[in-house]
Structures are given as C-alpha cells and as structure tokens.
C-alpha cells in the first residue's frame, strides 16, 4: 500500500498549505502598505521602500506595477493604500483621491544611434508622430522612411507626451510597444525608428534628440527649459495617515528626493 | 424453509439493457456443499453468479426482479446493505486479478477494510488463508514481494486466499480455472474439496468434467433458463431433460 501512503502524504501537504494560508490572515494590516500603479515609477518606489523599511522595520511595503490607471483604481478600491500615477492630466475618477507630486520625469524623443537627425522642432515632432512627415529627409536626415514607435494608448508616458504636444493623433501604422525597455530595444535595433521614453531610462543604445534646440538633460529639465515633462503623483484615498503618510513624507524628504534624482528622475520641485 | 439452504432464489429475472439475461430462475443452494453450474457461453451463468453478490450493480443497464434470499433476507431489497452482502459472499474471477501490491497486502485487503489493524492478527489471517488456499509453502518467505511476480496458478490461489481472508459464508467461483494449466487446476480443486466443509460454494464452469469431479449438486443453464438442477451424479448419468443430456455428452456447447 505504498501508493496509499503517498496519496495520504499529498493530502496532508495540501491541508497544511491551506492551514498556513488561513493563519496568514492574522497579519497586521496597519503596518503593511501596498503601493501600486505606474510601471515607470515602480522601480523607484521599490528602491524608496527598501530605504524606508531599513529605518522603519515595523512597516512592510509591497510595490506593484500595473499602470497609472490601475494605481488610481486600486487606490480608490482600497486594494492599495497608495497609488502611483504619472499622467499630466489625471482622469476624472481620480478627483476623489488626494494627489501629491513626488517627482517629475522628462520624456525623451529617441532615434537610432545611426540616425543623423539630432534636433527636432516641436512642430516636426508632432508631424513625425502623426504621420504627416514620413521621411527622415524632410526633417534633416537621410532619405529613408520613418518608423514611428509609440507606447500603448492610456500609458502615462504616451498621454503626457500627447497632451504636452497638443492636438494630434498618432499615425495609424505606428508600432506599439508597452514598455520603456521594448521601445528602447526596438529603436536601438531599427535605423529608421523614432520613439519616446522616460528620461531616466535613457542609455547609450539610443540617441535622444533635442527639442527646439533644448537637450533632454537634467539641468534643462530642472531649469524648466525642456518642454516634455510630466509629474509623478502618489495618490491616497483621503489624506494620508499612519505608515502611508510616513512613507510619503520620506519620499518628499531630502533623502528620498536625492534617491529619486540619483536614479534618473527629477525632484518634485 | 430448510435450515440447510443457504440461498433461495425465487423467480429471478435479470435484464441488461433490453436483453433478458435470466428468465424466472428458481433454485435452492444448499449450505456447506458445492453447487456446480454448467451451460454454454451466453447461458446466463455468470450473470446469475454476479447477481448473488450484487456485483452486477456495476453493469450499465442492469435490472433484476424476483427474490434472492441469503439466510432468509432478500439481498435485492432496496435497503439491502450491499457492502455487507459482498463481505458475506466472496467471489473468485475467471482470470486471476492480483491487485498490484504485495502478497501480504492482497490477502490483508479484506480484513483491513473490515477494520482489523493489528499487525499480528493480520499476519495470522494471512497465514491461515494462504494455507487454506495451498499457497503458503510457496510464498511464505516472500510475502512482501509484488503479487504480480507470481505465476498464473499461484495468482489464482492468492485470489482464493484473499477471498478466504475476509471469512465469507458463500464463495462464488466464476470459471476459476479457465486460464490455468491442469496442475494448477488440480491444486484449486483440491482446495475446494477441503473448503466445502465450511463454506457454501457455487462454481460456474465451462468444463463439465470439472463439475462432475467436484460439485455435489449441479445446475444446467441454457439461454437464461435454469433447465435442471439436482445431485451431480443424477445430472450426469440420468438427466430428466434431454437438453441436459445433449450438453453433458457433448452434442453442443
């Protein structure tokens, strides 16, 4: 009856797992915070959470991605105590939430390293991305077609990009990628591609272009010269309190802001 | 009725789907003796046997009317304790079916179901059952090896021991020697001869000579009907029905 014993063991294991799961219910809610939302800010939040927990061992912070809308939604439903959003204009349903600007992020327009173009006027960016200009020759480059690469509809980076540039529709045949990393890989691999991504995630694999002669650089953004900048919000339902407030205070503290700056985002003000 | 009658079957009709497998069978099975059942393939012998321990409940489309009284209680009655009946009525199948476990575990299967947990008691039961099935001497040193390693004849005796271990009152044998060589068959028959002193045994067999050798009484089934039943000598020497005569002398079947 060896088989019987094995089956019994499996049952016992399953029961134990279930029991463990149930005892997990007893954890302390007050000192456990979930932060969810913007994938662009997610890595920063993870870093900040680690620093915060190092000094406050009684608090557990869990950071989840999912996108800005998910940040708003879960902050509203209570699934997360703090939502993260990086949109220029918050959607109407976020009206019920407290929003605190904790950082700013520049959006860099990028091209392949082999592309001769290194500066674009705002009008040209608009024309390139909405498809009216389809050849690099028309904006000062080689005689090659332009391949537009964009983030997906609703992404914080994309909505901010579109809102700041104002009044255009993305070209119909644009390639869509759903993350900074894949946008970067796509542009890095394709000589004709143009895209945009968070300033903090620029690497030498791609080439950022200047906008109206202003480089996408930290000093220019801080000075307010560079146009494509969006805020990063932390959202809470009602005024933040308890551990959530402590965490937000930490993010806004000089130490927190320095962490944000060192890792490629810009301080809140 | 008679104290020496173990099972009384009255007007038993069995349907499987739309086929009528048994037609109005009425028969008394005497206690502590061997009833042989003979008849050609498809005559309803096996269906009859499997009705006696309600194993036909597993057959799709099975339906039975009539009464089967085991010690006076109807086992076909709606509220009958099927599991209890099967404990009292053991069965040995045509092909040996050792369960894929050790020899010991095979024999201890029934007693364990009945709630026997003590290792010592189980050992005793296993030993006595294997002895009664004439298998003990061959396997006593390897009780923990897989039953699948035994030869066909040994496997069938193991199955017999397994039935004996649950201490039934009735033992049903469904052509138990059909897959065995003459030597193994002889050993089974030897065991049966000893067992009839304590058990009511019903032996379905295709082999009329086997019935003649071991059965006290013999019944002849044909096309779902019980043609004739009586002492074995009478059935084989001077049957009252000509069909019985034709069958036992080998005109058909």
């Amino acid at each position, binding site marked *: 009856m060896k088989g019987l014993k094995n089956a019994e063991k499996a049952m016992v294991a399953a029961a134990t797992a279930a029991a463990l799961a149930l005892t997990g219910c007893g954890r302390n809610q007050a000192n456990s915070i979930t932060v969810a939302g913007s994938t662009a800010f997610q890595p920063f939040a993870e870093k900040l959470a680690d620093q915060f927990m190092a000094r406050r061992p009684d608090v557990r912070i869990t950071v989840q991605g*999912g996108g800005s*809308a*998910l940040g708003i939604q879960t902050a509203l439903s209570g699934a997360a105590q703090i939502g993260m959003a990086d949109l220029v204009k918050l959607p109407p349903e976020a009206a019920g939430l407290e929003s605190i600007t904790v950082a700013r992020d520049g959006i860099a327009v990028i091209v392949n390293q082999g592309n001769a173009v290194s500066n674009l006027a705002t009008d040209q960016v608009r024309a390139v991305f909405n498809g009216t200009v389809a050849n690099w020759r028309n904006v000062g480059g080689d005689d090659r077609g332009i*391949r537009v690469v964009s983030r997906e509809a609703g992404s914080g980076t994309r909505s901010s990009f579109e809102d700041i540039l104002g009044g255009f529709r993305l070209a*119909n045949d644009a*390639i869509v990628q*759903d993350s900074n990393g894949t946008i970067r890989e796509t542009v890095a*691999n394709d000589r004709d591609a143009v895209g945009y991504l968070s300033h903090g995630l620029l690497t030498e694999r791609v080439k950022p272009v200047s906008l109206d002669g202003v480089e996408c650089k930290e000093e220019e953004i801080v000075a307010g010269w560079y146009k494509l900048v969006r805020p990063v919000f932390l959202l809470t339902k009602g005024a933040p309190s308890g551990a959530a407030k402590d965490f937000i205070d930490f993010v806004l503290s000089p130490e927190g802001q320095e962490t944000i700056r060192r890792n490629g985002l810009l301080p809140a003000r | 009725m008679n104290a020496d009658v173990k099972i009384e079957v009255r007007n038993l009709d069995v349907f499987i789907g739309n086929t009528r497998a048994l037609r109005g069978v009425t028969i008394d099975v005497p206690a502590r003796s061997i009833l042989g059942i003979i008849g050609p393939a498809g005559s309803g012998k096996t269906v009859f046997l499997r009705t006696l321990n309600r194993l036909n409940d597993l057959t799709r489309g099975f339906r039975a009317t009539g009464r089967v009284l085991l010690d006076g209680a109807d086992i076909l009655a709606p509220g009958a304790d099927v599991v209890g009946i099967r404990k009292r009525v053991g069965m040995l199948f045509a092909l040996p079916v050792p369960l894929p476990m050790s020899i010991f575990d095979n024999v201890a299967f029934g007693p364990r179901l009945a709630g026997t947990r003590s290792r010592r008691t189980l050992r005793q039961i296993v030993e006595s059952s294997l002895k009664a099935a004439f298998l003990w001497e061959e396997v006593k040193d390897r009780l923990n090896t897989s039953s699948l390693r035994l030869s066909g004849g040994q496997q069938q005796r193991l199955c017999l021991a397994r039935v004996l271990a649950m201490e039934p009152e009735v033992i049903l044998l469904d052509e138990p020697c059909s897959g065995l060589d003459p030597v193994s068959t002889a050993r089974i028959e030897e065991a049966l001869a000893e067992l009839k002193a304590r058990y009511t045994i019903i032996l379905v067999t295709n082999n009329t000579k086997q019935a003649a050798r071991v059965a006290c009484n013999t019944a002849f089934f044909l096309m779902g009907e019980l043609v004739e039943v009586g002492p074995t000598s009478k059935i084989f020497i001077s049957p009252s029905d000509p069909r019985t005569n034709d069958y036992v002398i080998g005109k058909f079947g």
Partner: protein
Amino acid sequence: MVVRWIAERAVKWVLIALAFSALASLLLIAVFIFKEGVPFIVRVGLKDFLLSSEWDPQAGRFGVFAMIVASLCVTFGAMIVGAPLGVAGAIFLNEFVSRRITRIVKPAIELLAGIPSVVYGFIGVVAVAPLIREHLGGPGLSLLCASLILGVMVLPTIMSVAADAISSVPNSYREGALALGATRWQSVRMVILKAARSGIVAGVILGLGRAVGETMAVIMVAGNTVQVPGSVLDPVRTLTTNIALEMGHATGLHRQALFATGVVLFVVIMILNALTMAAMKRGHAGK
C-alpha cells in the same frame, strides 16, 4: 457500519461539489467578463464594434475587426509553422529513428513546453525581428515574426502529443503493413497516420488553443499596430494583446471596451473549439 455509510455519503457529496468546481469557475469568469463587456457592446452596437477597424480609445472609437483578423492570421500562421514540423518530427522520431534516440529527444522537447512564453517573445525581439527587417523589409515586428515565434512555441506540444498517439498504434499494424510488402513510408502513410489520426488532431488543437490565447510573447513581437494586415510583414495587434496592452491604463468606457474584447475572444475561442470538435467527430465517423 452506520459511520461508514455516512462517510460514503459525505464523500459523494464532496465529490459532486468538486465536480462542479470547474464549471463554477468558468461561469464566474464568464459572468465577470460579460458583465463588463456586454453592456458596452449593446451601447456601441455589435456591428460597429465587430466590423470597424478603428481603435482609438481617446477619441471614443472602438472597433475590433482588425484584431479579429489579426488573431486568426497569427494563429493560422503559427499552425503553418508548427503543425507540419511538429507532426513530421513526431513521425520521424517514432518510425524512422532508433528507440534510444527517441527516449532522449522526446523528454528534451517536452522540457521546452515549460519555457516561459516571455522568453520566446524576447528572443523574437532581439534575434528574429532584426533578421526579418534586414532581409525581408518592413519593421520586423510583424505578423510573420509573431507566427514564427508562436509556431516554435507550440511545436513541443504538438510534437509530444502526436508522438504519443503514433507510439500507441499497436505494433501489429506496422508489422502487418510491412508483411504485405509496404515500405516503411507506405506503412506510415497508409496505416499509422490513419490509426493515430485523432491523437494527432488533438495535438494540433491543443497547439491551436495555445496560439490563440498567447499574449505576452505576441505583445513583444507583433508590433501591435491596429490594422488589417496587407502582408505578412505588417505589424498587427491581436485580441489578447489588445487587452494586455491597455488594461493597465484603461478606465471607464475604455475599460469596458477591453472587457468587450475579452467577450469577443471568448466567443472566437468557443467557435474554434466547436469547429475542431466537429472536425474530430467527422474524422471518427470516417474511420
């Protein structure tokens, strides 16, 4: 005995409850998806939703026609790549190669079924798409790239199920055919493929299901442009990727539109299921 009888009863009820667990999950999922999606479809109109190819959530335009076409094309493409290779591999490994090699190769192939789809997708981005772009033109991230990646991804499933089906054909069939003077190939073509047909079809169906439903790998390699593809080099967006791409950001009507996409996906999969089941039945009847 009473205790045993009660226990027996209890077990039976527990089993009945468990047996409905799968059904209950399905219903729960269907209710959730349909509750959010169906009101949207009613509001926009089935025709506008299904037959328009314009998808612009900001402008309030929601048409999924191009995505339905893209889903079907990608799946079909993946099958063109995966099914012949998978079935050929299964035949070859079973009928033309020694048992020893098969015993090593088959588990290795099954191992590949466990590799996460995102790994396949990423390899598509960094290795396959650039090749397509350089040698065939277009953006690289395309219908072709998605079909190739998905085709390779479903290969292990198809190959392993088809191989099981072929190896379960009794040896006597093979010997019978060979004894009648057939070559190895004739015995395969005339006897073994016929006998193993339903198993092979089952493998292809499993692969098909996996290809229709795959999301993460397709997001990476398909380019995700909403358009009815004009050639295999065009980027496309499938139903699954549409949901995964935008769900994180969608609110209000947009979110409902994505659930409605889920409803369409659900229906497309049910239709594919029904068609393949019917095909299998016909296959059985023809035997």
